[in-house]
């Protein structure tokens, strides 16, 4: 027998009920096997937990970055605007709507925008530009756009404009220069807006930097015949993770048509979450989540296999012992239950070790972050990711691996211990020592 004389007190489990005591002490009859099995569980728990913390952390950052850039957490639009992007699919009585939505529960800040495409010209140079008319002061509360201004300042007056860096370079303008915007107004006819370049903005998104032109909302409304109209009411909620609930509440509270069904120019309203506004990000996260799930399940499955193997070996080696227990009148079910306890202890040891390692690593990385490297930096910025990833502690990440492994180890122990029902005490006792 492998048990040495006088096992340490800490392993003695003298305070536990007898079957648990037997189960616990049995673990230490073959310390190496227990260590390897619990080590496998620890490996899976550590890897899956740490990876999930990192994964959720990067999703969190991606969402924060992406919604903070332009989209906000929620948007209210004309029912057709998202697909058509047409100038006339605008919300009427925008100021009233803004005030009403802004005071709803769960909404931290709100800002109205008008958007259109226009020709931006400087001298003989012209480029297509995506014009966003906004209220700079209100936007500061909703998104972090102002943090991305790399030269000059944000919009302060009706004449100011902030250009994407690439657009500015293409147009050959610098802060202080004048740019002429030429487009079509809402009722037809030509819209003209002359603006001064107050600042330059760099988002890291190639498409935006090449086309973005921010201007004062009132100036754009006036020039494009959009008085008191807006294309988007952009909202920041009190909690990004609760956005679906808040959106549902907003939908319930708002009328289906705005200003109301009686008014002549009432339009259908649509409340969109960032998932609808940035489908590519939402889907990229979904795909990543799916592939990660494949990854996690494969690892945990493999470790569960090794637990099955451990219990096959345990049952095989202890056939005589089980035979004796059956002979003195212990029911097979209770013998099996004892093995389930062993599996539970093994899981407990492995999970504790794995969680401790994962916790330490995540806590450390949450401070320092993981640097992706210079090559990945540009790529990351296209995915709304910063160059440094910070894992987060989240219930989902902390519970998944332990719970799945709990189920896995229990099932893994059940399969071999079903054999116990087939052990006939007579045969077991007859086997030579």
């Amino acid at each position: 027998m492998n048990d040495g004389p006088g096992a340490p007190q800490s392993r003695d489990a003298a305070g536990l009920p007898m079957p648990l005591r037997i189960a616990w002490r049995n673990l230490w009859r073959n310390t190496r096997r227990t260590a390897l099995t619990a080590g496998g569980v620890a490996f899976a728990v550590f890897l899956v937990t740490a990876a999930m913390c990192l994964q959720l952390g990067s999703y969190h950052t991606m969402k924060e970055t992406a919604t903070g850039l332009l989209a906000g957490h929620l948007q209210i639009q004309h029912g057709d605007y998202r697909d058509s992007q047409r100038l006339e699919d605008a919300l009427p009585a925008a100021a009233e709507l803004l005030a009403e939505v802004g005071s709803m529960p769960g909404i931290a800040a709100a800002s109205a925008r008008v958007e259109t495409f226009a020709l931006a010209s400087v001298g003989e140079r012209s480029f297509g530009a995506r014009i966003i008319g906004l209220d700079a002061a209100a936007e500061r509360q909703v998104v972090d756009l102002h943090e991305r201004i790399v030269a000059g300042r944000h919009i302060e007056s009706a004449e100011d404009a902030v250009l994407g860096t690439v657009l500015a370079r293409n147009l050959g303008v610098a802060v202080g220069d004048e740019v002429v915007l030429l487009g079509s107004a809402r009722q037809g006819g030509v819209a003209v807006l002359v603006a001064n370049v107050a600042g330059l903005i760099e988002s890291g998104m190639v498409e935006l930097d090449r086309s973005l032109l921010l201007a004062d909302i009132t100036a754009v409304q006036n020039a494009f015949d959009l008085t008191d109209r807006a294309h988007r009411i952009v909202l920041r909620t009190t909690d990004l993770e609760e956005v679906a609930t808040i959106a549902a509440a907003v939908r319930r509270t708002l009328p289906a048509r705005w200003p109301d069904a009686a008014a002549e120019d009432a339009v259908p309203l649509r409340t969109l979450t960032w998932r609808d506004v940035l489908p590519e990000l939402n889907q990229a996260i979904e795909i990543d989540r799916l592939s990660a799930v494949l990854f996690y399940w494969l690892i945990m499955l493999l470790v569960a296999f090794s637990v099955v193997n451990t219990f096959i070996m345990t049952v095989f080696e202890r056939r005589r012992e089980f035979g004796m227990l059956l002979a003195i009148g212990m029911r097979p079910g209770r013998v099996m239950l004892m093995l389930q306890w062993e599996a539970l202890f093994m899981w407990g040891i492995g999970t504790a070790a794995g969680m401790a390692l994962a916790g330490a690593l995540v806590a450390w990385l949450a401070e320092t972050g993981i640097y992706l490297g210079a090559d990945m930096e540009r790529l990351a910025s296209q995915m709304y990711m910063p160059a440094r990833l910070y894992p987060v502690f989240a219930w989902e990440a902390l519970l998944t691996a332990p719970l799945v492994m709990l189920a896995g180890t229990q099932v893994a122990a059940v399969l071999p211990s079903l054999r116990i029902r087939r052990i006939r005490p007579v045969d077991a006792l007859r086997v030579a020592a």
Partner: protein
Amino acid sequence: MTAQRRSMPLSLLFSLGVRNLFRHRRRNFMLLLAISVAVAGVVLTNSLIRGFQADMRDAAVDNLTGHIKVLAPGYRDDPGIDKRFNVAEGWHDSLAGVPVAGWAPRIRVPAVLMSERETRGIELVGIDPSREDISFVGDVAVSGERLANAADGRLLLGKALAEQLRTDVGYRLVVMAQGADGLNREAGFRVAGLFDGDGTGLEKAFAFTGLERLQSMLGTSAVTEISVRLEHDEPPLLDTAVRRLRETYPAQDVLRWDTLEPQAAAMFEYADMAIFIWFLILMSALVFGLVNTLVTAVMERTRELGMLRALGMRPGTVVMQVVLESCIIMAAGVALGLLIGSGLVWWLRDGIDLSAWSDGVELAGMRSTLVPRLRAGDVALVTGMSLLLGVLASLYPAWRAVKIKPLEAMQR
């Protein structure tokens, strides 16, 4: 025949190993299953990542990039007709002997498209339709008509862009762009057809017209780029082609696709690394069970191994026996795993439909159908590394086996 006298013949050790494995069918079957699942998992994810890599590169190359491009200096930073160059007469002689799939001269300039109600900024591309079999334009689905030739003065637009502009086949659009003299040009174009880019951003980014028409509009006979596509993209071939082109166009930039699309190239390398890391992690998860089973197999044979040692078996032979046993089960597991994995790849040969996530897929540079690709090199790598792992995992159990003292073991 000294080798024979010194140790047991390998064939005997081998059959001993196989028999030992069959002594404990249940647990070794579980081990085999675990190895197979791991290997099959590696093979499947591996070929999915390879498929993703290939997609990404093809998409990058297809999207008007090609394998190699000749560009005027400065065009990449500030694309415009002022960064242009003339196509040298008979220039492609310089590529004689290089397997070229095709090449296309183009003008690509930023432009503004105006319908009666809407304005959009896009990239206007002047092409010679007969040469565009090297890019997506050549085989994209089109409603209406394609461009007939380089002199065709009509426009080919993406479906999504046409919807935004509220235009359709046969309608007129006004195009504004900067001319070669730096002055703005404006011209009317009729829409020839609308292309279907599978909902990708291509539909909103580009409008195509005939190269000669665009040249006359902008007042130049030059182009802004020549895109070259090779028969295959082995690095030495790319290097040769780049060298020849640089000799022909010494004043221009000659760039490979991975320089032109650094994001795709970075993603490509990242995927290479991911394959390796993934393999290591899965195999590590396997090691716990493998070592566990092997040590048990050694410990329950303590008497037997002690007896063999007493009869004169050398420690080296004992080690060999354990290592061989590990390798046999590993090899069997790898074979089964490869079979299952290739089966899965074959089953998915028509690709996984990702169109439900088309926007996200595009963000990652993939196509809407992901076809797994199994490469012989990867299979060889997985097999070799697994066997190496089998040897490594058997070292500790083998050490335990060697430590068995013949006399003590037999007294037990």
